[in-house]
Structures are given as structure tokens and as C-alpha cells.
């Protein structure tokens, strides 16, 4: 299974095997990664699953839809060029080793 590496604001990283097709958000919740809140359940209504995607991987992701782009405008920590909502990133074999960094806060 592809691996996803979650890096906490303090710099601690955890590597998790994620089934293909699972979102980066769902895998975080399932594996007890603090720092992903996912208040709306993954429907692009809140920004509480915001992550910064490592630059090496960012361009490999399908581009964000308008709904996701809009949500990034309200993130608790201001968006950066590599900001994404982890509920919109589905893990694929191509993304093996994906690194996402968690913001200081989600609300």
C-alpha cells in the first residue's frame, strides 16, 4: 500500500500505509493523527482538514476544484501555494511517500 507521511507542526512525522482510493483526511482520522479535525466530514464546507503538501508531490495532485479553492480562503492558518484540503486528496500508487505538513491550528 502507498505510504503517507504526516508531519506535525512540531516536526514529528508519522508514516502510515493507506489503501488506494482512501483520502488523506480519512486515513488521518482512522490512524489517530491529531491536527486533522474534519468537521464537515469531507464535503468542502469547512477548512479543518487543511494541509501543506510537500512541493515534490504538489504538482502530481489533480488540481483543486473551485469549491476546494474557495474553502482554502477561510483556513485558520493562512493558505500557502501548496495548501490543499486533505479530504480532497485520494491516495494513489503514484503518490507513494506523499508528505503532508499539518498547520498549527484548524479552527
Amino acid at each position, binding site marked *: 500500500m502507498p505510504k503517507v507521511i504526516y508531519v506535525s507542526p512540531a516536526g514529528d512525522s508519522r508514516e502510515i500505509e493507506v489503501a488506494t482510493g482512501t483520502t488523506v483526511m480519512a486515513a488521518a482520522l482512522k490512524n489517530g493523527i491529531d491536527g486533522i479535525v474534519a468537521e464537515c466530514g469531507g*464535503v468542502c*464546507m469547512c477548512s479543518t482538514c487543511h494541509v501543506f503538501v510537500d512541493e515534490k508531490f504538489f504538482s502530481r495532485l489533480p488540481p483543486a476544484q473551485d469549491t476546494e479553492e*474557495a474553502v482554502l480562503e*477561510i483556513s485558520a492558518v493562512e493558505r500557502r501555494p501548496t495548501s490543499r484540503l486533505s479530504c480532497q486528496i485520494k491516495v494513489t500508487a503514484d503518490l507513494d511517500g506523499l508528505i503532508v505538513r499539518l498547520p498549527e491550528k484548524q*479552527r
Partner: protein
Amino acid sequence: MKNGAVIVGTGQAGFQTAASLRAEGFQESITLIGEEPHIPYQRPPLSKDFPLGTQDFESIELRPKNFYADHQINLIAGERATALDRTTRQVTLASGSRVPYDELVLATGARNRLLPVKGAELDGVLYLRSLDEAVALKERLKTAQEIVVIGGGFVGLELAAVACSLGKSVTVLEALPRLMSRVVAPIISDFYRELHSNKGVKVFCGAYVSEITGASGAVQEVALSDGRRFSADLILVGIGVVPNSELARDAGLRISNGIAVNEHLQTDDENIFAIGDCAEHPCIFAGARIRLESVQNAADQAQCVAATIASRPAPYRALPWFWTDQFDIKLQMAGISHGHNRIVTRGNPESRKLSVFYFRETQLVAIDSINRPLDHMIGRKLLAAAVPLTPDQAADESVDLKQLERAFASQPKP
């Protein structure tokens, strides 16, 4: 010896209170008590992806089962709280056991309003609130062919869209003159009526159900007060909810349209809070005391109460927002439109990109958006910060709302 925090209700509000208390560094014990036999789960998918089959229980759990033990949250699922003793600070459970508290959070939610007509008890009349009801509904949808939905609000229309997508014959009966009339402007109601009609859903407004008839105990027809009849083998009822206030009422707490709380979401007993669907609270955006049924309200009120209990009190000031998914269209709503006396629009229904801006006199109070997500998200900032926006500016597409918001945010504040 401290008794810690006890939370009654395992919905979104109860769950979030427990999770936020730990996130806030609360060190005492946390007990989360719920009537349902399941671990806390999300309700919104129950009328959308869950009956469609695109989400299962595991994908709607708010957190996996081990979350509770991992965070020292004592989850008691499948037990009803039957009484509060405010003198000894104890909650009595149906089993007779008693749980002592220092702080008590009532997140008891709401229950479905029942259809008050003859025949409503027949087999084939279903309501939707809980997971168990959603499982039953999903099962019945497999074999049902003719579905009548009573109630043209969010839940009724979401279910109508699901049933239609599953290839069923669907009729929606709404008593009021238009769909979702309690919350949205006529232009939005009309848009949704057309959306449903184009997909093949038959929509009737001003339709008062007077009776449900059946044979051998099973539903057969829905009769309206004007004599019209609709045959049905499954009837889905979504006509609103009633707040679960009885536990608080029986303990002598003040009740209005729900459990009455102050701006700190505290009842008249300073050690007892009420949040989520069951709580009537003062809302600065509505300029009134209101009760809301939404994920946002549940989660934000939970966060507010958790901070208060963890000694970081602040009044509840979060902006209300909502959404509904019907077919491939998401309606995003921000603010409280109640009491508005002027609306202006951006976009139009024909392009399926439309925002409606609601004003109370000159004050922007709410925005509803269809396929204009940036209007919604920037709109939340405009509403939360009370950024001045005139109706003319709102209607003028050349006025960039994001720029307007940024300019306001960067102004020096007195």
C-alpha cells in the same frame, strides 16, 4: 476527588465537546453518555451518501472506536439518561446507575416531529434521524417503487433526490407554498423545484396531508385535504424536529424553544450547559434567541463550552452556516436570513450559478450560494466581521468581494 465533565448526547455536539476538552488540555475525567448503541457518527450523510450506498458506517464514524480510550473518554453508548439531580450533581441512567459531575453538558439533540394524521402508524411510514433509521430506510429503498416524501425541507428533498437517483418514482408533498420556505428566498425554492422536476420528481406545494390509508397494515395511499390521493409503497416523513428538553425541564431548568442558555451556553444552573440542536441561545447574527440544527452549530458550540470548562471562557459568537446536497447541486448558506426585507442576486438560475444576498435594512445578514463557492466562503468573512456592503455592491459582479474583505481587514481598528 473531582468528578470531571459529563456530556449527555453522543451526536456531533457531544462528541466534539469531549474531543475539544482533551484538545484544550482538560485533565479531569470525561464521560460521554448516549442513548444510541453506536459510537458517535456524522448525521448529514444519512440522508445522502449512506442510503445511496457510497458511504458505509465506517466512513461516517466521527472517529474510530479506539479514539475514546486513547483520549481517556469514557464512552457509555446505549444508555439513556433519565434524570438530573442538581443538588447532588448526578445524572441517573436508565439502568439505575448514577454518574456524578462537576460540569454537565446537555447535547441531547432533537427527535423527529411525528406526522399527526390517521394512518401514520402503518408499516411503510419511515422517519430519518438515527443510523438505525437510515439502515431501515436503505433496506426499504431496495424494494420500494412508489415513494412519497412528506415535507419539502432539507431532509425530505435530500431523500427525494436519493430515491430518484436510485430509479424510484418519487413525489414530494410540501404543506407550505414553496420548498425550503423557512430558510431560503423564493428564487432558490424555484430553482430547486425545477431541479427536482427536471429529474422526474413530482413536486406538490400547498399539499396538506390529511390521511394515510393502507391494507393489511401496510401503506397504500396518501390523501390530501383537497381530496387528491397518491399511491405509495414507502412514505418518508421529514417535517422537522422537536428539541429533547425533557431532562432539563424535569430538573427545573428554564425551557423555551429548547433548553434556554446564555451567551456562554450556560443554563440557569452555572454548572450545566446546553449545546447543539437542543439549545436555544442568543445569536448576535440573528439579533434574537434561536435554536439551530446544524453541524456548524453543534461543533462550534461544543468548542466554546469545552474552552469555558477548561477555564478559557468566551461568549459564543460563531457565524451560522449550513449546506444541503441534492442531486449534483450543493446549496451553501451563511448567516441567518430571518427578518430580511431586501434581497439582491449575483449570477442567475439559468447558469446554475447563483448567490442571493439577504439584507435587513442596509445590513447584510445572509448569503445563499449555488455553484458560487467563493461568494459563500468570502461571504462568511464579510458576515462574521460585519464588513459594510451595500445591496448595490452585492449585486454588482464587478465589485470583488475578496478585495473588499481584505481592504476592510487591513484597516486599522479603533
